[in-house]
């Protein structure tokens, strides 16, 4: 990596990207108040909201036009993911989109499955661990997905379940479920050889960036709640937000959010344009977003004192999901190590 290389640093959104962000911002603002988030617990899935979202094209927009999509880039999907995350939307957006894009690019995908995925009629999920190395595994979105895309040795497979597995109740109220992908369900080989591994790696990288974007949205909203509290709650005759012991930790959260968002965009852009850069930036972006979100949600809850520790307070929703989302793919420390791996590989 050449740190003095002449590159563009253009983080601006074009008109179309702004329109996508604004449309989904408005959709979630109208349709997904925190009451609806709570109503979807403990499963963490609102089927009606998912259908509304699919009707807006969220399930298909990132698919190639040949697969019934709009050919949106990953950056556009990241904008949607951030809005969904900010609203804590109980929908498996990252899981479905990452898996559906992998499926659409695979030679062995059945047309009917692809069409169902594009319409959001059949929810897909992505297994986070290779099938061969573990037995059963917790699959994010696995309690609402009838099909799971996974890597088994050197084949990319999709496993279909006739019945949804039961929810594994969890801290983040996400639709986690145990899947035994080596077992007897119907499985279809999507791709094999190096294309399989490459396709899976891209899908997992996309899931991580989409989840990271959702974590940034979550953190910004949690911060907003805490800032409003700090403006209005008084102690000793002044708003607590005037106290440095309150204001400075909140400023630290803002620092994290602003960098994490840009790092995610940069990583997402590189994943499509310069995979060698993405190898370092994707794990960096995910690990940083996980740190920013868990630190930010903790800080935001704490700034509301004991109230922030109650289930009644929305701060609880953000706190529980910050960890609940950032841990789904395993210990984020693995992503930290992956950053060093990329540096060492670039040096060799």
């Amino acid at each position: 990596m050449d740190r003095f290389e002449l590159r563009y640093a253009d983080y601006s959104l074009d008109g179309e990207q702004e329109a996508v962000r604004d449309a989904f911002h408005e959709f979630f603002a109208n349709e997904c108040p925190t009451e609806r988030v709570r109503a979807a617990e403990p499963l963490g899935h609102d089927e009606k909201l998912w259908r509304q979202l699919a009707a807006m094209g969220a399930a298909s927009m990132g698919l190639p036009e040949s697969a019934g999509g709009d050919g949106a880039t990953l950056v556009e999907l990241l904008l949607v993911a951030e809005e969904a995350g900010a609203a804590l939307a109980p929908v498996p957006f990252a899981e479905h989109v990452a898996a559906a894009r992998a499926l659409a690019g695979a030679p062995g995908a059945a047309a009917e499955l692809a069409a169902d995925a594009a319409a959001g009629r059949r929810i897909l999920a992505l297994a986070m661990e290779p099938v061969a190395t573990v037995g059963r595994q917790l699959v994010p979105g696995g309690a609402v997905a009838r099909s799971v895309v996974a890597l088994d040795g050197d084949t990319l497979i999709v496993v279909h379940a006739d019945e949804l597995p039961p929810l594994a109740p969890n801290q983040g109220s996400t639709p986690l479920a145990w899947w035994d992908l080596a077992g007897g369900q119907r499985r279809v080989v999507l791709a094999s050889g190096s294309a399989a591994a490459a396709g899976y790696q891209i899908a997992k990288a996309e899931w991580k960036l989409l989840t990271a974007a959702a974590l940034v949205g979550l953190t910004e909203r949690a911060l907003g709640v805490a800032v409003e509290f700090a403006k209005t709650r008084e102690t000793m005759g002044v708003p607590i937000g005037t106290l440095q012991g309150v204001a400075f930790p909140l400023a630290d959260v803002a620092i994290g959010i602003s960098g994490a968002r840009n790092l995610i965009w940069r990583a997402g852009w590189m994943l499509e344009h310069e995979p060698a850069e993405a190898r370092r930036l994707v794990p960096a972006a995910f690990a940083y977003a996980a740190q920013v979100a868990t630190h930010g949600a903790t800080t935001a809850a704490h700034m509301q004192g004991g109230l922030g520790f109650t289930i009644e307070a929305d701060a609880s929703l953000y706190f529980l999901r910050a960890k609940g989302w950032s841990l789904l793919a395993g210990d984020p420390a693995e992503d930290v190590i992956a950053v060093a791996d990329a540096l060492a590989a670039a040096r060799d």
Partner: protein
Amino acid sequence: MDFGRVPLDASEQEFLDDVRAFMDKHVTAEVLEEERRTGSGFNERVHLALGARGWITPTWPGERGGAGLDPVRARILELEMRRAGVPSITHGTTRLVLAAVEKSGRPDLVAELLPGVAAGTVRFCLGYTEPDGGSDIAAAKTRAVRDGDEWVINGSKIFTTGAQNCQYTFLITRTDPELPKHRGLTMFLVPLASQGIEIQAIRTYGGERTNIVYYSDVRISDRYRLGGVNDGWSVLHGPLDEEHGVRAAGPASLGDLSIGTSFLQTLGGAIDSALAWACTSNRADGSRPIDDRMVRYRLGMVALHMEAGLVTPGPMGRVKGSDALVRGAADLMDLVGPAALLSEGTADASLTGAIEAAHRFAQGTATYGGTVEVFHGIIAQHVLGLPRPAYPGSKTLVSRKREQAAA
């Protein structure tokens, strides 16, 4: 959105080659060693050579002493100067002050100074901080009193980095102690050769030289005043906002996103050293440090915070850049172990000296240009919209009130 390499046409490539040849010729090992030893942030030979090419004010047209560079060429120059390690503190403060001089200086003063700035013979430093004032620069007590067509200045300024290499200091003075704190200030461009100025060196353990500058009955002409009497705060605001990244508006798609970028380039050099150490040294069992997952975890953590810092915008980037460097350099020291303590510049530290130097240098970055606490306040109020705290001294000079009360 675009993060790609900027494609260069043949003439731009030629310019890049020319810049690199210039740096090879002028920024020699001796120049770098001298800078390491003196920490002055300035090298006169290099600075004058840059001036001869119009590269001190590179975007100015040739007839004004610039090189008429377009944004791509100006960015190429900036990046290659950093790559080569051109000592650039005084260059930076000169450019910062230049905007205020152009905007608020009298036409005859501007006409007199600008050719020298472009040529490299006229250089500016910042006379902001006072020994008992710290980051609260609006609390300046250095007095300027009018005497006919002249002003008489008394007081002292600390951390006037580069004063020994500059011709003028951009001085904030108190001209009316009765007015509210921010309204009684006036800015001057004080010739450092004036009678009554004494410059004393201060060394930092970051290896830098800075100064304390004493002003004793220094008389200067009114022509060196910048802007109106008692209107100094508005004159100061331009350069200050630039330093604070408050006005970092627009996509600036070729520039640095973070105003802490230079801190992170120091961290980048330390990471490169740590990576080289981890990949090339051998442990007792024959393994390399990089084979150890704990080493990779710690190295990865420092690297990812550097990446995050580089893309953190505005005033947030200043805090993140310093924070990543302070923590990162300390972590890399621990990672390497006692060998990391060996002094930069000695034979044993050829591989890890950059880490040792970065660790010492890092501490200053949390303070200069406004402490990270000042920036936390800016973020809290301007980004988050939190209410501004009401401190006794935020609008008036507290010490002055105490003096009056005592009287």
